[in-house]
């Protein structure tokens, strides 16, 4: 094909806008704009598109996260079922949680209980309180050995984050489930997944790779904290140092 001389193009003397408009109005397939895709073109387009979608949506998450099982299972539902287990007192659900996940005297939050807490009930390694295999394993491997259980924490925030449980749970009267979900009702501990790059538990970003969240507890990123603060009318708590150290 012969290449059109630049002269054919209107020079900027009579204004570039007009020339531009001309071109758009005088648009036709043979014009100098990029012609649209042919059918063949679409195939090639899709050939590029689809594998990448698969890569991004399916393969990427698998590669990004490592999975580790918890050292042993813990049945929250069982422990919180008064017919099965007594001794876990508390009028409200929160109180029940706090029975094991307790506040220390100085107001700091103990998080996952230490062995000492467990042995308040499971005191004798030789006489299990139930029949479950995990309990037996627990008694022999940890209670007898006086070894702490190396639990993996789903909601461990990075070191730069300061989170005051007491401010939220006691002063703010926020239910545990709002952030942690209905752990109380679970019988099995979910698999712990860790982001290979960041070292965060998957539950911080959320189990949905796109970061889509349905419930308040689906994600624990900074924006989620801020969102709630705002919703509760505590804008002032979005100041950096309230949640960072």
């Amino acid at each position, binding site marked *: *094909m012969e*290449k059109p001389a*630049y002269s054919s*193009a209107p020079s*900027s*003397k009579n204004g*570039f806008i007009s*020339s*531009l408009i001309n*071109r758009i109005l005088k648009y036709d397939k043979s014009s*100098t*704009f*990029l012609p649209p895709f042919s059918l063949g073109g679409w195939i090639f387009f899709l050939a590029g598109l689809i594998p990448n979608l698969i890569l991004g949506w399916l393969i990427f998450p698998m590669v990004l996260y490592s999975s580790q099982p918890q050292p042993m299972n813990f049945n929250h539902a069982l422990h919180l079922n008064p017919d099965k287990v007594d001794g876990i007192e508390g009028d409200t659900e929160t109180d029940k949680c706090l029975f094991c996940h307790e506040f220390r005297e100085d107001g700091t939050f103990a998080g996952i209980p230490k062995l000492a807490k467990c042995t308040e009930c499971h005191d004798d390694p030789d006489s299990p309180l139930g029949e479950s295999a995990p309990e037996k394993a627990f008694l022999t491997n940890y209670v007898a050995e006086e070894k702490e259980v190396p639990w993996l924490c789903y909601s461990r925030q990075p070191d730069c984050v300061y989170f005051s449980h007491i401010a939220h749970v006691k002063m703010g009267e926020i239910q545990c489930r709002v952030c942690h979900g209905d752990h109380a009702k679970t019988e099995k501990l979910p698999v712990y997944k860790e982001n290979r790059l960041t070292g965060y538990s998957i539950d911080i970003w959320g189990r949905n790779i796109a970061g889509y969240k349905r419930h308040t507890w689906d994600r624990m990123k900074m924006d989620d904290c801020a969102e709630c603060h705002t919703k509760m009318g505590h804008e002032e708590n979005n100041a950096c140092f309230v949640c960072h150290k």
Partner: protein
Amino acid sequence: MDSPLIPEGVKRCSPKLFFLWTLPWLGLLAWGGISAFLCLYKGLNQTNMSNIFAFALWIVFDLAVIALGAGAFFTGFLTYIIGKGELKNIINAAVIIGFICYSGAVAMLGIDIGQPIRGWFIFWHANVHSMLVEVSFCITCYLMVLGIEFIPIILENRQLDKVPELHFFGHNLHEIMAVFAATGTFLSFFHQGSLGGMYGVMYARPFAARGGFYVWPWTFFLFILSAIAAGPCFTILCTKLAEKITRKKLVPDRAVQTLAKISAWLLASYMVLKIADTLGWLYGIVPKAGLQFMDFYREGPYGVWLVVAELLICGIVPAIILMIPKAREHGGWLITACLLTCTGIVLNRFVFIVVNLAIPVMPFDRFWSYLPTWQEWGIGMAVVGYGFLLFSLAYRYLPVFPMEKNLNPVSE
């Protein structure tokens, strides 16, 4: 051997010679490469920057090249918006120089910040009050614009031009270049300004602090003005250098003279304002802070000579030279004037960065001085090398100077 790539009807040196010519620049790039690796891998302890000299050589380089690169947008502005046709012959060169300067600057900034991987926080968590945010946004956008402005020039390469899509694409870009020229001008005005603003808003540093208009301190406007005054000079210098090296006439005098004339007037007006600003500062901000002029130049290498050099020798003098038609038509004087102007701008940026930080604010604090490490020089020099390399390549394989063919007919 690479002849099919070389534009039609122009003469270029042998590939061998060209390769030899690129060696020194490749060398500089290698030096820079090593430095960059060290700085990124080991951290900025590789430099002599410190808590006192938070900004140093790199930022000086950045501001300098950005100011000098202003030739691109300003020439573009004159060409496409004002419609100074004759500048069409130099606009390509201007654009390429601009692109070099800006891409170099951005690369340098990438290494200068302590956490490059988080660099994008500037955009994501932008603090709109920070002049640096304004700078970053404008520079990034403008770099894209420059890229777009550069593309058609690349596409005019003989081989690429053969591909119809690319040809059409490039051609159309050409057509709508004015849009980008306009955008570029707008963006550039702002970041040149905000670069100046960065220092003017250091209200707690009497040496840099300035009054201003609305959110913009005077330095904001002074930097714009100085940039558009010096930019063309730099463009001229580069083309002149190219002509020297290629022993060819590449740009019609008319284009050069137009630029020279314009920058003469800009420079003149800049000097007037700059002096006004200096006086305003001297009789306003300085005494208010309980200081006297000489307090800033009491000790260390950074003395009053800086003021003389910047305002008189590298300001007023070149302005006068460029304003006298006889003088600026004389090659030697023209180049001298352009050189002085560019030096003046670099000096001005240096003063606002290094000298500003060297001067203690607390009375009981002491004066510090600073010498860059070879790693810092490496990065800076790499930009120079990269500039030469890119420009040489462009010159060799692209019709950078449209009039070259006519000015140097190849006799066969």
